[in-house]
Structures are given as structure tokens and as C-alpha cells.
């Protein structure tokens, strides 16, 4: 009885813990509240308390499907019949001036796609046969065919997409987002990362918080073992033993608090209670047993226990439902320097249907309107062939690639920007990585120039000193 009461009190005290002072220590507090005056963050920059952005956002949450390794825009989303026609020819020398691919001599033969494209939806967007399920959603999607980036190697380019800088050590888009907006989830972290296929080139820095306080780090939910590291009690403990231990810990720490009056002790007492709640909320989240067979089928989940991209898509929906602010899926599988036909086919089989199911699911739950879905990689692939022959593939290409977004305030059934006949250069409405990030922040309610953090005497921002909001794609 006594224990039950205490549990109840504990819950009351800690209910909104992730929301409140998931704070940094005194030094951090002092530093930041002293230094950050003009930026958005005048309030409490080091908590996850939900807070309002600069203006009314169109997107309240984000799911960023990062197709790491860089999918080929030419075989999936940017149809280039002229490239097919000129198959086997060399590219015009004028194109190659000052151009650098990563591996190949740029003066290699052109390679048209081997896949069929057809028009879909009312908007009539042309999409590859590899993506039949996403094709059904083209009227919800805004395609940006004019993306370009500075980097041409994987790790720097991934870092550049995710943090706006090619050097390591900067905060990621997800970290900036929870820094700006805080989190509305009571029991789960604000920024969750799910990985499939293999680890990414740029590793943990892709979702790192850089110089922002550690609470803004992306928290990876793992496919095997504990979904959150060290979530399970040690071997042999049951829940009662855990609760009993934490009750004693709490009382002992409260005794310390009474003596020291240190606010950090109060925060620590809360953090242990939230940890306890996480021990039930995270497994609950990961348990797909509550989902119907129809849902599992829609996402193409054959074995709910098996960790893969499809499962991550459904988990993304479950996270978003539970008010997690930013969910990022990494699928490192797209680097097809060779055997592009075979491997892109496989990658699309693995990912096309689950992504479409996620879109449909969000729509059915009326969440797509304020959830921004982003799909894309770190650069594009060359119109020129690499490893010609049976193993033909494409090299890295940073001058043009395609990404798409849906929901959260982007124009639906809309196409922005265009590349030349070969899909080599952007010829209309170029969108640089900084522009994309500025636009995403805009949808989240931020002026990207004002979402800043003072570090080393400088106000850093996601977009460095660049970036223009692409107003044309906003609904």
C-alpha cells in the first residue's frame, strides 16, 4: 500500500519530466542564459520544455527518411529520355569544365536508365517503375529536382546535409529542431534515430548535437537488444525489485536535497523517475503486437521482431503518434558504383512500400497535414557510367539530385526545379542544401537566421551564413 502511494506521488511529480528540466548543470545554465540573448533562445535553451517558435509553424513534427549512400535521381525520380537516347556517347565537353566526379574520369560514356518511367496521379509526375507504391502518392508529394550540394564524398556530404557543414562537430537538423521547439512527448526523447541496412558513412555525427547541450542529441532506438541502450534491468531483477530500489534511491536523494538544496539534485531525482517510466514506455512503443495484421501487411512487415527498414517506418509512425518531435530513419544502402540495376531494384523493394504505407498511415490519422516527411540522400549520381559492362553503375554527383517532401505545409502534387536533358546540371530553380534546411526550419516556424546558438563567440546557425527559404514550395 505504502509503495503504491509512493508510486502515485512519484508519477505526479515526474509526469512531465522529459518536458521540464532535462537541464544541464549550473555551469551550462549560467553560460547559456548569459550569452544567449538575441537569438530565439532567450528562455531556457537547455531544456526540452515544449516552446513556441518564431511564427506559426505548418509542421509540428518531422520524419526524415535519409537514403544514405545516395540514390540515383536518374533511375528513380528525374526522368531523362534524352540520356537514354544518348546512351554510350561521351558527355559534351562543355559540361565537364571544372567538374569532378569522385571515382571516374568524367569523360565516361553516358548511361540512360534501364527502368521504365510513367506518369502518375493528377499531377502527372513521372516516376520510375521501381517505386510503384510511392507513385500512388505523387499527389501528396512535392518533388525538388534541383537539389545541389558542395560535397562529393559520402561522410562529408552526409554531414553537410544533416548539419549544414562539411566538417564534423556541428549540430544536426534534428538537434536544432528540438533545441528550438523542445519536445511534447512526456516519456520519450524528442529526437529519435532508427537505422537499417548498415551504419552510415558519417556515423553518429549525422544525428549529433555538436556544441548544443547533450539533451539535444538524437537518441538511437536499436533494432536488436535494448531499444534504448541500457533500458533493461540487470539480469535477475524484476520490476518490483527495480521499483523498490528506485523508491529507496529517491528517498535517500531527497534527504540529500533537503541538506544541500542543490537544484541539480532535484533534477536528478526526476531523471531516475523518468528513466523508470521509459522502461515501460519504450518497450510498449517497440511492441508491434498492438498493430493489426492489415497494418503490418501494408508496411510489408513479415516478422515484427525483425529489425529492418519496414519496421522502422511503422515505428516512426508510432513515435510521431506519441509526440516525438523529430524521427530520422537512416538506410545506408544506395552507393551503387556498380550493379546499379540489381541493387537499386532491391533497395526499392525494401523501401518503396513501407514509405508509401507511412504516408498513407499518417494521412489516415490526419497527421500528414502537420507532419513533414522528407525523403532523400546526400547527393545524386552521374549520368555517366561507372564500371561499364554487366556490372554497370553510377558515380557520385553533387551538381543535381532529387529529393521529395510531403505534408507539413509543402505544396502537394508539385514539382520544383529542373535539370538539363542529361540530369547533369540544375537549369531551373536551384535549391542548395542550405536553402532546403532554411525551408524546413521555416515550416517548423523558425526564421533560420534567428535560430542561433552562441558558441566560441559566434552565433552559429544550421545554415551558416547562407540559405534562402524556397517560398514557392510552401502551400
Amino acid at each position: 500500500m505504502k509503495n503504491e502511494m509512493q508510486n502515485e506521488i512519484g508519477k505526479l511529480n515526474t509526469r512531465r519530466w522529459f518536458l521540464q528540466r532535462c537541464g544541464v548543470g549550473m555551469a551550462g545554465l549560467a553560460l547559456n542564459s548569459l550569452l544567449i540573448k538575441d537569438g530565439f533562445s532567450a528562455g531556457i535553451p537547455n531544456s526540452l520544455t515544449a516552446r513556441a517558435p518564431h511564427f506559426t509553424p505548418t509542421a509540428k513534427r518531422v520524419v526524415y527518411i535519409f537514403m544514405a549512400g545516395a540514390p540515383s535521381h536518374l533511375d528513380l525520380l528525374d526522368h531523362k529520355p534524352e540520356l537514354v537516347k544518348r546512351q554510350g556517347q561521351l558527355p559534351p565537353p562543355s559540361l565537364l569544365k571544372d567538374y569532378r566526379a569522385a571515382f571516374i574520369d568524367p569523360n565516361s560514356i553516358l548511361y540512360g536508365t534501364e527502368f521504365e518511367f510513367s506518369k502518375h496521379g493528377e499531377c502527372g509526375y513521372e516516376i520510375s517503375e521501381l517505386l510503384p507504391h510511392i507513385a500512388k502518392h505523387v499527389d501528396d508529394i512535392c518533388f525538388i529536382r534541383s537539389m545541389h550540394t558542395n560535397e562529393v564524398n559520402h561522410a562529408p556530404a552526409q554531414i553537410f546535409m544533416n548539419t549544414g557543414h562539411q566538417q564534423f562537430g556541428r549540430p544536426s537538423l534534428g538537434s536544432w529542431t528540438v533545441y528550438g521547439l523542445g519536445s511534447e512527448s512526456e516519456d520519450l526523447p524528442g529526437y529519435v534515430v532508427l537505422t537499417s541496412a548498415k551504419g552510415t558513412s558519417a556515423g553518429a555525427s549525422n544525428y549529433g548535437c555538436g556544441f548544443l547541450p547533450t539533451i539535444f542529441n538524437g537518441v538511437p532506438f536499436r533494432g536488436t537488444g535494448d531499444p534504448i541502450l541500457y533500458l533493461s534491468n540487470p539480469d535477475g531483477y524484476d520490476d518490483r525489485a527495480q521499483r523498490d530500489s528506485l523508491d529507496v534511491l529517491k528517498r535517500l536523494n531527497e534527504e540529500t536535497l533537503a541538506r544541500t538544496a542543490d537544484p541539480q539534485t532535484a533534477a536528478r531525482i526526476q531523471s531516475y523517475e523518468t528513466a523508470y517510466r521509459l522502461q515501460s514506455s519504450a518497450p510498449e512503443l517497440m511492441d508491434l503486437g498492438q498493430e493489426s495484421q492489415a497494418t503490418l501487411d501494408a508496411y510489408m512487415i513479415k516478422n515484427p521482431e525483425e529489425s529492418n527498414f519496414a519496421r522502422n517506418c511503422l515505428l516512426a509512425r508510432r513515435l510521431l503518434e506519441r509526440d516525438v518531435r523529430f524521427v530520422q530513419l537512416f538506410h545506408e544502402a544506395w552507393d551503387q558504383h556498380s550493379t546499379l540495376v540489381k541493387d537499386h531494384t532491391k533497395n526499392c523493394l525494401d523501401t518503396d512500400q513501407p514509405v508509401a504505407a507511412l504516408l498513407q498511415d499518417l494521412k489516415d490519422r490526419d497527421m500528414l497535414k502537420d507532419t513533414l516527411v522528407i525523403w532523400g540522400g546526400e547527393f545524386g549520381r552521374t549520368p555517366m557510367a561507372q564500371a561499364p559492362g554487366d556490372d554497370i553503375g553510377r558515380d557520385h554527383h553533387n551538381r543535381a539530385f532529387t529529393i521529395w517532401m510531403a505534408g507539413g505545409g509543402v505544396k502537394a502534387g508539385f514539382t520544383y526545379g529542373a535539370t538539363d536533358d542529361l540530369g547533369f546540371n540544375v537549369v531551373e530553380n536551384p535549391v542548395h542544401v542550405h536553402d532546403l534546411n532554411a525551408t524546413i526550419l521555416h515550416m517548423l516556424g523558425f526564421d533560420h537566421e534567428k535560430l542561433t546558438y552562441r558558441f566560441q563567440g559566434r552565433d552559429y546557425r544550421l545554415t551558416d551564413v547562407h540559405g534562402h527559404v524556397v517560398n514557392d514550395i510552401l502551400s
Partner: protein
Amino acid sequence: MGKYLNNPLSIEAPKFMSSRLVHTLLAIMPAFLAAKEKTVDYGSEILPILSENCFECHGPDAEAREAGLRLDTQEGAYADLVGAVAIAPGNPEKSELIYRVNHSDTDERMPPKEFKKSLSNEQKQLLRLWIEQGAKYEEHWAWQKPIERNIPRHSKHPIDAFTLDRLKKEGLKPAKQANPYTLARRLYLDLIGLPPNLQEIDTFLFAFKKNKTRAIEKLIDELMNRPSFGEKWGRHWLDLARYADSNGYEKDKPRDQWIYRDWVIDALNDDMPYDQFLVEQLAGDLLPNRTQDQLIATGFMRNGMINEEGAIIVEQFRIDGIFDRMDTLGKTALGLTLRCAQCHTHKFDPITHDEYYGLFAFFNETHEAKSWIYSNEQLERIASIKHQIKDLENKIKEERPNWKNEFSSWKKEQLKHSSIWKVWDTSFQDWHGGLNHPNELDDHSILTLGHPSISGYSVTEGESNLPMISGIRLEALTHPDLPFTGPGRSYWGTFAISEIKVFRKWPQEKDWKPVELGHASANFDAEVGTMRDYFFHETLDKEEKRKIGPVCFLIDGDDRTAWAPDRGPIRRHSEYAAVVAFKEPLATPKGSQLRVELLQNHGGAKNGQDNQMLGRYRFALTDIPNPKAPDYNHAPVLALAVPEEDLTEKKRSALFRAWCMTQGDFEGELAQIEELEANYPEAKTSVLNTMDSLPEYPRTTYLLDRGIWNKPKHAVKRQTPSILNELSKVNPSRLDLAHWITSKDAPLTARVQVNRIWQSIFGAGLVLTPEDWGTRAPKPEYLELLDWLAVDFRESGWSQKALIKNILTSKTYQQDSKVTSKKIERDPNNRLLARGPRFRTEAEVLRDIALAASGLLTQGVGGPSIFPPVPESVIKQNYVVPDYWYPAEDENRYRRSLYMFKKRSMPDPVLTSFDAPNADESCTGRIRSNTPLSALTSLNETIFVEASQGLAQRILREGGQSNEERANYGYLLTTGRPANSFERKEITNLIESQNERLSEGWLDIRKIAFKDPKSIPKLPEGVSPRDVASWTIVSRVLLNLDETLTKN
């Protein structure tokens, strides 16, 4: 101030004038009244406003300057710009600045609206008041050399004198001295990063009772002499040095750099003076008669990341690496945000773009060197071998009194011989598939850095330079950017070439035709051997059929055999040559092309870590019949071409040895030399070190436009920022730079380090921005104290131990950390120091406390990093899965956290959750977070769980018989103090309730109590496994107490 100043007409416009007057009068009234009351301080009140809001367009950066107005200097601000003056001293009405910041029209108001900044009324009034009072500019406090400050007369201890003086003025009282338990634990944690054990607590308490001051001093001295002191304080420096055990980026290969970490620990334990500590790390390689240790010290700048991703342009990432070194220099030594001047002149501090690249030059004009490191005993052995060889050489010289002449004519003869080879000037260099982009150097040799490929082949093409070719020579050459100078890129700096293939294409021919090769010879021929296990490759060569050995393997048509000359330690890093004669001489009419492929398939399966590429090579062609390699080494062949006066000792000796070999008379001596050299020891480890560019590879530094690596603008000479002390040397060396940094005139060096030490102890520095002392840094509350400490530090020989002792002996440090409501209201962040420091310990200390309390800790300084257990799901998230990650199962498992392997792309999940940085860049201070994820970590992570089991057994073994006694003992071990009755009651209740549940079979005794439930260690008499289990549950609570995790 933009448009307005550029348009004198608008100033004259009467309409403007009248509205302006009204406006200013209205805005100014309240401030005017307050004016008599206070004097505005430029440094703490005005500069922050100007720097924050104005300098971006009216600051040091001339290129970004608007309207020609500069507000960061007095001359600039007072200047008459076409009839308008930004600041008219004493006359706010005439000051354009006042007018513009108050302007009602948002298009005219400053700062411009697009900057999204605005001044508060208070700030506007301050500016006005300051101008009224004469608008005096002062040099930013941090640019001024710290001066010796008078110590206030409140205490004998200088630190207390300063704080008491201030607290008195603030009407605050210092806290009383903390109790001896708290004090002891605080001192232990601050000095050695470990909690005291029971005996240590007792000893201190006893001494404290007798004489408080003496007890504290004695303890400080004792702890400073322990090796753990260097481990604790070295860790702070390693954050700055961005020390890691892997290269970062996609491949993130492991590196051997721990010897640098050990150097830092030793230097701190030896209390190496801080100026020397900096000099050795920045330029130890340039010190006269430098020692191996001084070379290791230069690993400091080389701790940054190295990109080895496929197809990269190496130069791009080399430049990124130098940027990182600049950032590190700025943060650690100078206290300047140099990075802000990487793309343009600094916006806030007077550091020009040219000055940035002037500093950059010191680090840019270097090689990416890697050197073997020997034990002291090995070093002695090497010296002895070299000495004996010298003796033998002298003996030969004595036997041939005329050796000089003979040697000289021999050289002439050989030179003639070597001229039969014509170096091939190639037009195309590649690595098949583009994973690498080799570079041709001035001497037509080809250097391959970047991706470490485990199989594949290099391609070289070019026009033939002879009408007839009888053979080709492949030279394997050393280079300072290769590991240990190469010539290979393997872990040992060796290489293996599986096959050489030559093709020709006559003019008008379309396809390459293979050239038949006849015979191969080399100046050094290895025996047939198998490869080291290190290069094992499961898929490429499961049955281990690959062989290495003699030069004939080059042309045997079997790519499983490779020419892999390795002359053993030290000697392997020399040049080799293989000569391949064509089966038939090949006619190559003008315009004929040649293509050479070097197949290199002898790498292992560790993702490049175990490549065996040839790093630098060069080809030459000949037309003499049956070309062969000479009998002696290739080094003298190359030395022949060097003018006598440029010969190094090493080259001279190589030539002399070659001459001896051709004489026939010295076989005995040569055999002895051979035997001696064969006994060179294999080094114990290696280091990435700093090395100046060799004269044969000069590098010019250019200012990079916008900081872009391939956009050089103009050449820049070495120079230092003029805002700091002067470096009065022509062509200064990196050593001069290091001396400049540690010079007595340097305004910041001492202060920056004093501040960081203060920060480590108090949780926050006297200056809150340890990496930024520029105009935007907030002026410290205790500038006088900081300066006093800095001057004292510098003048008394830069002793870090003395400085730390000085701080720890102060009453200020020893205060109780209890927070009172008055103090939290007046000074929530303890900037005024009216109470002692209390904060959660750093990641490594926190984990070490668990290890120490449980008795599991393995002490011992230095050595290779250890692999902690990490969940499988984390290992698998790596792009390149670390197949070397075998968690230590022996006593190494419980070494101090400082020794945990730091893999950049897989930051340790335990340390990260307690805010350890992952060495992406230099870290000057850690943030302290407090999250549920860290709670889960210290509750459930493997090592913490093992610590709870260890602690339980220790309590049962040593803590007495009753639960009360044991509870008390547990508290002493974890928090360093006895438990009070409430705490004892809580613990004994928990023991009783858990014993009941364990007995009833609700919980698994063995799983809870023991790391391996199948094997139970010997337990003390009368102790049952159930006791261990219930005390393990309790111990887990004790290890997670706020007081355990915190420095109190």
C-alpha cells in the same frame, strides 16, 4: 550606418534635423537625469553592446565594412565621415550613433532590421551616458597583459583576500568550511579523480583533528605525488587535444596514438612547466637535440581526424586538418576564436584574414608524419648498434688509407652507370576504379595517399622517351607523408606488389598490347615467405595461398605471389628498385605509348588497415641489353645524384657502404655490420607527429578565398596577429611561434590555462568562455584575481601543481557547498564564490568512482587503450564494423576510464551519456547534462552492474556483521561519509525486503549476484549467495546516489 552616411544631402535636410532633435530629446531625458550617478565602464558595459550589434558591419573586417565606418577603434568612431560623426565625445546630440539607434523609422534604425537585432532602452541609455562622459575607448581587457594586482588585505591567502573583499562589498558572507569527510572526498576527486578509501579517510580525519591547515596541505602534497594525479589532470588536456584512438570519417581506422596520451600523463606528473609543456607539443620536433619524448609531444597537433574514404582528393582533407589545428591552437593556447577568421577577417576581434593564414602557414608547411617509438632500452640498443657500425666503418677507412680517392672515383664510375636509366615522365596516373587519385611529383615520382586499398592496381601511362626499350625500372621510394616514410603504406610502412604488367600502343594503334617480360632483378631480394597473419583475407585467400618474397614474383604470372622486400626494423624504410628486362627489346617509334600496371592484391580483410600498397614509386626506361639491378642497395644509387655538399649523413653512409660492397676486401666487416643491423629492435609503438616540410617538398601557403581549399588567392608569409605580443623574427620557425606563445609578454597564455584549471575545480571558469577571450567574452567578476593568479603562475615558473595547490588551500575552495535561499537568489550560479563547488563529476570520474568503490579498479599508468564491453547493436552501427573490438576480460576490463578506446564514429555510449566529447574537435569545457538516459546507464550498464556486484561482496567481506554496520560501510565507500540513521534504516529495510523476495524465489539469486551465475567465487564465511544478491541490489542504489555521482 549604411546609406545615410554615404548621402551627405540627407544630413543637411532641415526636415530631418528637426525631427531628429525632438526625437533625441525625448529619448534621452531619463538617462540624462541618471547621468551624474555612475561612470560607465567601456569594457564591461559598452564593448559588449558594440561588439554584439555593430561590429559585423562596422568592425575589424574591412571587406564587410559599411559606409566606411569603424566602431571598434576610437579613431574610426570619432572620424568625420562626410559631415557626420558616429561618436562625438561628450556630445550625444551630435553623435550619429545615438540618432540612428533611436530612429523611429525602422529602415533607418540601427542595427538594420535584416540583422534581427535590437537594442534595449537600457543599452541605448548606456551608450548615451558613455558618450556624455567622453566616449573613452579602452583596449579590450584581454588584449592587455595581465598586471600584478594588489592583494586586498582581508586574508593571508591571496584568493581568499580577493573573494572576501568582493563578498564584503556585495553584503554576502562566505560559507563555513566543509566537513572533513566532504573535504577529503573533494580533494581526492579534484586531485586524482578517485574517491578515498576508508583508511585514507581515517588518516585524514585524524590529521584534520590535530591541525586542519597542515592536514589539508599534507594531503594535497601526497595526492599530487601519485601517478593518478596525471591521469586525472591529463584527461582535461586530452579533451583540448581532441585525443582519440581512431581516424574518424567513414573508415575510422584505429590508430596507435596512446603514447601521446601517456606523454601528457607523465608531463603532468612531472609537473613540467606549462610553457615547456606547450613548446614541446607545438614544436618539440624542432628543439635542439630533441628527444624521442619531445617528438611524441608533437602528436598534439596530429590528433585530428584523417579521411581515407574512397576517391577523396587528399589535399582537401589535409587542409581541413590544418583548419582543425588552427582551431585547436586558438582554443588551447591563445584563447582566440581563430576559426572566425578562416573565411574572412574576424567580425568581432582584430584578427585579419591574412593574419589567420600567417598563423596557418606554421602548421601548413608540414608533413603528415608517422614515427616508430622505442622503449628506453631499445633506444639504448639502437645507439649501441650505430656506435659499433661506426667503429667498423672507421676500421675499413683505416685499412684503406687512400679510401677517399678510391671512393670518389668509384662514385664517378657509378654515376655513369646509373645514367643508363632515363626517368619516365608520365602523363596519366590512376588507381584502377578511381578509389585513389595518385599525384605526380616534380621528380616524376608518383605519390598515392588517401584510400588504403587492399586489392587493385595502379595504372601509369605516358609516352616512351627512348626509340628502343629493353627494360623498365621500378623504384619504391620513401616520402615523409608515408607511414615511417614508407615506401609502403602498410601498418609497417612496407608494400607488396603482386604483379607488374607492361603494355604498349604504337602510334595509330587503338588497343594496348602486352609486352612480354623476360627477367626481373632487384637490389634486395627477399626469401620466399608467407604473409603475416595480420594480412589474412578470408574471401580473397581463404586457404592462405598468397606468398611474398623475391622479385621474380613480380613477373611470374601468378597474382598470389608478390615481391615484398622488407629488410627488417629501421632498414625497411629505405628505397628499393626492381629491374624488369623485356623478353625482346621493344621498338617504340615516336609517339608510342606505354602503360604499366602494378597489381597489389596482398591486403587483408580489415578494411584498409592492412593494405600493402606502394606509396611512392617512379619508373625509368633503358635501352641497354639485359638490364639488371646493381648488387648494392638503391639508396646509394639515389645518393649518387645528390651534390656532395647536400649529402646527409645517412646518404653519405649508404654510399660508403655500397663502395665497400664492391671492393671485395671487407666481407668480414660487412658481415658484422649486417649482423648488427639485423638486430635492430621492432618498435614498441608509433606516433603521428608534427614535422616541418623538407626542402625537397617545399609548400607555399596561400590565403584561401572564403576558406575554400582550392581557391588560393595570394601567398602569405608566416606572421602572428598584431593585437597580441610582437613576434620580432624574420622567417620565424614553428619553434619561434611556440616561444612567442609562452613569452612573458603574451597577454593570454597564462590566463587561459589558469582559467581552465579553475574551471576544472569550480565547474566554471572565472571567465565563462574558456575558448573565447575576444571582445564578446563577458568580463569576469574576478578579473583582478584572475590576473593575480596568471602573473603568479607565469612568474613562479609555470608550475601547474603549485597553481592547483594554491587554489585548493584557499578557504574559498574549502567552503561548504550548501545553497541557501539568499545565495541562490543573489547569485544562482555561484559566480561570486560565496559557497563551495558542487556538481556532477565528469564521465570518467563518475565511472571510476564505481570501479574504485567496488574494489574492481585496476590501477597502473599508460599503455594501449582497452576495449570496454559495448552492446552489439552499437558495434553494428559502424559503417566499418570494428572486428578488433574484443572487450577486455582480464584485469584490464577495470582500468580507469581514461584508457577506454576512443573510436570517433562510435562514441562510447557510457561516457557520452555523461557528456564526454568525442574528439571531433578541441573541447575546452564540457557541458553537464542530467538525463534519464544517463540514469539508465549508471543503473544498468554492464560495468556498473559488475561494480554493484563487486561492491556487495566487498561490503560483505569488509563491512562488519550487522546490516547497520554494512550500510554504514557502503556509504563510506561510495559517498565518503558514514550513513546517518535515516539512511541506515532505508538500506536495512531494503535488504530485508529483498532478502524476503529472494528467499521466496521471486528473484534469481545467482543472476543478480554474480557476473557468471555458473561460477560462484569464494564467499566470506557465513555469507550466502542470497546475501550477495540482496547487497548487490543495495549496492546498485548506493552507486546511483546523488552524493556518489557528485563532487560535494
